[in-house]
């Protein structure tokens, strides 16, 4: 706040108080983040330096965390692959196809999905979705078994990685569609009218004007959704049938890697001593993963922004 202006600005008490509290809030975020990071690092050290045989699983902390990290990424990627096209399609329908009255109602319903607690999605996944996926898994094993993703043996309960990914997809759908809808709604009317005036159909107009304009917003929404998918705990803990130390791309069997957040939730109540430090080390890995994802997302959004027409 050093004076760059020729005449120093008038500063009343209110100004100073507001500037101070705003700055304090900004600093508080950094302090909290640094505090969490420091806690994770300090408390995972005992697990990192412990002899491999003492760590749960008996093969060291990296082979314990590795499969969990793998499972976390797989579940989140399935969720993203399912939810992103769906979310964008919902947003396009609401902004450009649906009658205004219907769009408002539907938008409200989609937002309502975001308000449902994750444990409810977990119950929905285990009691409703999973049993209904079983026939599909049996079919997939028989007809698509040559693809490693559907190698089987198909689960008889449906508590598979694919089911978990679909549950996650439903959970992140409102985030992606809400943000996409916001940016699609902000496409300047001039862009759209120009495209239509050139003879574009509605689909061509969307392709030429709306999607390029909204691209960074869609990516941002997808990354927010990915963040939620990576950290989702209870729904996964309920739905997924896990086996410690597995790494497999087979999405339809009973044998699945767990995810970091779900594993912490499930193992912590019965853990003590080094086991807890190992769980914290896995938490550190998740923290690092989300950090990397966010940095990448920010980089992508920034790069895309140049071409989006937003500037």
């Amino acid at each position, binding site marked *: 706040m050093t004076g760059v202006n020729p005449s120093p600005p008038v500063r009343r008490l209110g100004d100073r108080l507001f500037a101070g509290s705003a700055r304090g809030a900004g600093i508080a975020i950094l302090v909290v983040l640094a505090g969490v990071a420091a806690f994770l690092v300090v408390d995972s050290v005992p697990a990192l330096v412990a002899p491999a045989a003492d760590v749960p699983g008996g093969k060291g902390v990296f082979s314990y965390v590795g499969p969990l990290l793998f499972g976390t990424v797989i579940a989140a990627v399935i969720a993203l692959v399912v939810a992103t096209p769906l979310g964008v399609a919902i947003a396009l329908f609401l902004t450009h196809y649906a009658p205004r009255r219907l769009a408002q109602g539907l938008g409200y319903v989609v937002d309502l999905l975001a308000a449902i607690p994750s444990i409810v999605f977990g119950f929905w996944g*285990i*009691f409703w979705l*999973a*049993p209904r996926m*079983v026939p599909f898994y049996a079919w997939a094993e028989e007809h698509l078994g040559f693809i490693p993703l559907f190698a089987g*043996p198909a*689960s*008889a*309960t*449906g*508590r598979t990685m694919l089911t978990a990914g679909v549950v996650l997809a439903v959970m992140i759908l409102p985030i992606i569609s809400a943000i996409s809808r916001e940016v699609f709604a902000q496409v300047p009317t001039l862009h759209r009218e120009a495209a239509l005036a050139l003879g574009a159909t509605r689909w061509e107009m969307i392709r030429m004007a709306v999607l390029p304009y909204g691209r960074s917003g869609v990516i941002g929404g997808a990354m927010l959704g990915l963040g939620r998918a990576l950290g989702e705990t209870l729904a996964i*803990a*309920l739905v997924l*049938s*896990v*086996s*410690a*130390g*597995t790494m497999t791309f087979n999405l339809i*069997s*009973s*044998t699945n890697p*767990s995810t970091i957040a779900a594993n912490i939730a*499930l*193992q912590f*109540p*019965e*853990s*003590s*001593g080094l086991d807890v430090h190992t769980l914290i080390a896995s938490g550190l890995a998740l923290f690092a993963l989300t950090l990397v994802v966010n940095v990448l997302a920010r980089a992508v959004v920034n790069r895309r922004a140049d071409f989006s027409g937003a500037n």
Partner: protein
Amino acid sequence: MTLRNSTRATTVTVALASTLALAACGAANEGGTASTTGSGDERLSGTLNGAGSSAQQAAMQGWTAGFSGLQSDVTVNYDPVGSGGGREQFLAGGVDFAGSDSPLSDDELVKAQDRCGDAGVFELPNYISAIAVVYNLPGVDELDLAPDTIASIFAGKITTWNDPAIAADNPDADLPPTAITPVHRSDDSGSTKNFTDYLSKAAGDVWTYEADGVWPLPGGEAGNGTSGVISAVTGGEGTIGYADESQAGDELGIARIGVGEEFVGPSAEAAAKVVEGSELKSGRGDYDFAYDINRETTAADEYPIVLVSYHIGCVQYDDQDTADLMKAFEGYVISVDGQSAGADAAGSAPISDALREQAGTAVDAITVAG
């Protein structure tokens, strides 16, 4: 006051106990004071802290509720951190007693010397619960399974329900060719430890793994906690799992287990009976009632897949208050009232009179370190 009555019910053993306690104390410290045994405190106050087995949690809630009805100024806290954590905290002196699904190991017994002194520890099998083998197979309401058959199913060696081995156990049943999906616990649990202990002892030819709280086989369908296993078994067709009998519900079939020539279903009586018929682990303290459960029993009134969870505490505590509180609390837990309160809350099997009498000797021996 009922408490006093019920403890007095074991007066016969008190006399025996005091002599034993005297002997133990005499061996431990010069001039052991067994006089505290009969301290006539009617009203106690204070706090007892315990930690350990989550299997005992429901029963413990019943016990603490019942005990506070007798001694309203006493607070009993129980933290269900898990058996291993409970033993660890107890040995480190963090809590007054531990709840544990398995007795102290030899290493832990050495550590217990530091914690409790030479008088040692008591281990009381206060929580007994039958583990049911539950299955979901439409059209098959009754199922008998020999130990070798169960082991083969869970080891993945029998994969369809119409396998000849299952048919041999169930000559009258109409078994479908449905694939079998065995469901195990994904978390470290006393149920898994007792179930695998049963398999390794009763079907050692087929089940070549040792007893372990973590499921020893890689892969397969897994559920978290008893409720996770139950919902997985309920949700699939052709599934089979193991879970606390009280949690099995009405929807699932419960298999009868081959015991000798007969097939026996899980029940509270049969579960308590097998513990009574089992042998104590040898070479332990006078009040260390740790059992080697007789998994290979051939008595048709015993059900061998049981989970026994212990209360572990010191025979001598450093201060009078803790000793009095422990004596009163454990006295209540083993009493008829206490056991039925636990059974009501958790669906566990009340201990038999013989076990109660035996545990009474330990309760009467609890005293302050002299």
